[in-house]
């Protein structure tokens, strides 16, 4: 009686054909295009908006200052310390980059977050990985590693248990969890919104009386994904700050 509801292969939701430099090692697909557009928007808003800063803020200046203050006070100073404001530009850029990429998930007509492609969370988490290892060794030398592997106050017998766990944690778990957390959240959100949109379309054709259900659910989940997009950008940045703080002051 009804046409069967078919969900497209997952691959179709995430893999996009190149639109420039086709099939080359540097082909540009929808993911990369959205990354470019996001970057251009960030630069346009933040560099354009910061050219004429006034003592009494108005309009976009409020957004710029709010963002800076949010990252500087809410993340850098709170997590790393008041003397660590030199990390705010990096953390702020990271936060904005992820945030803008995440928000494509709910932009009508686009509805695809580039952060649901593993390439981007992987790159970002590995960059953070390199950064905190570099800072750790720069500020603490080999003690950065030994301090983690042989934490003070732990009975030596327990090193047999603690040391491998710590080693795996700082070598693998940290970057992996950082990347996968962002990827999984954005990917799940994208699949969910796609499923609800397809379900709405399907019920509209085959069972209009219940269309309102998936339709309203789709709207609700879209709002929820707005929150998720922000929250994931915040969490990624916050954890980056935590790792940097750990590199600078491992004794804490």
């Amino acid at each position, binding site marked *: 009686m009804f046409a069967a509801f078919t969900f497209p*292969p*997952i*691959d179709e*939701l*995430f*893999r996009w054909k*190149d639109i420039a430099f086709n099939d*080359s*090692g*540097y*082909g*540009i*697909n929808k*993911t*990369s295009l959205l*990354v*470019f557009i*996001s*970057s251009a928007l*960030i*630069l346009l808003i*933040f*560099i354009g*908006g*910061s*050219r004429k*800063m*006034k*003592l009494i*803020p108005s309009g976009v*200046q409020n957004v*710029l*200052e709010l963002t*800076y*203050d949010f990252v*500087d006070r809410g993340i850098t100073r709170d997590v790393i310390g008041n003397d660590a*404001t030199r990390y*705010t*530009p*990096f953390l*702020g*850029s*990271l936060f*904005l*980059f992820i945030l803008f990429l995440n928000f494509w998930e709910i932009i009508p007509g686009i509805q695809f977050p*580039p952060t649901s*492609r*593993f*390439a*981007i969370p*992987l*790159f*970002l988490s*590995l*960059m953070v990985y*390199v950064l905190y290892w570099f800072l750790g060794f720069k500020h603490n030398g080999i003690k950065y590693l030994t301090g983690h592997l042989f934490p003070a106050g732990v009975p030596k017998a327990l090193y047999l248990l603690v040391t491998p766990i710590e080693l795996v944690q700082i070598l693998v778990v940290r970057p992996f969890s950082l990347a996968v957390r962002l*990827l999984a959240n954005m*990917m799940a959100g994208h699949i969910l919104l796609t499923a609800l949109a397809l379900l709405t379309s399907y019920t509209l054709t085959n069972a209009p009386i219940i269309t309102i259900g998936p339709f309203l659910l789709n709207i609700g989940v879209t709002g929820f994904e707005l929150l998720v997009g922000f929250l994931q950008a915040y969490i990624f940045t916050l954890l980056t700050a935590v790792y940097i703080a750990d590199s600078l002051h491992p004794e804490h």
Partner: protein
Amino acid sequence: MLASVLAVAVKAAEAAGEVKAKNPIVPESKEILWASIAFFIVFGLLAWKAWPAIKKSLQDREDKIRGDLEHAESVRTQADKELADYQRQLADSRNEGGRIIEEARQSADQVRKDLIARAEADAAEIRARAQEDAKLATERAMADVQSRVSDLSIELAERIVRHNLDKATQIQLIENYINEVGGTRR
């Protein structure tokens, strides 16, 4: 460098056919490449142009607010000091006014006492002079009376001597004399 290493690694894996399957999880090297380029451009330009300007704006406002607050505090302290000065001056003025009034009152009191004393002295002098005058008048009157009595006594004696009077005549004569003297005195 990280991005290029990563991209090469992924590319190598793809070439090896290990990730050729359509697995949406597998990262694509070209996406890593472009994302890394985009991120470093964003970070570089924001760190160069945007973040310092925003930080400076916030710092300027913070400095302005702090300066204004400190200035307001300074002005308030100055105002408090001036108020205290004015209140002290007002209290001094009140004390000075009270002192002047008290001095004036004492001065007036002294003037009053002086005037009263002088008036009393004048009155006493007048009274003394009047008493002196009365005394002199009395003495003058008494002298007149004595003189008159003497004259009359002499006159009486002359009359007695001139007339050898009987007893009744003598008595009559004396009574007449007395009446005459009494009438003279009145």
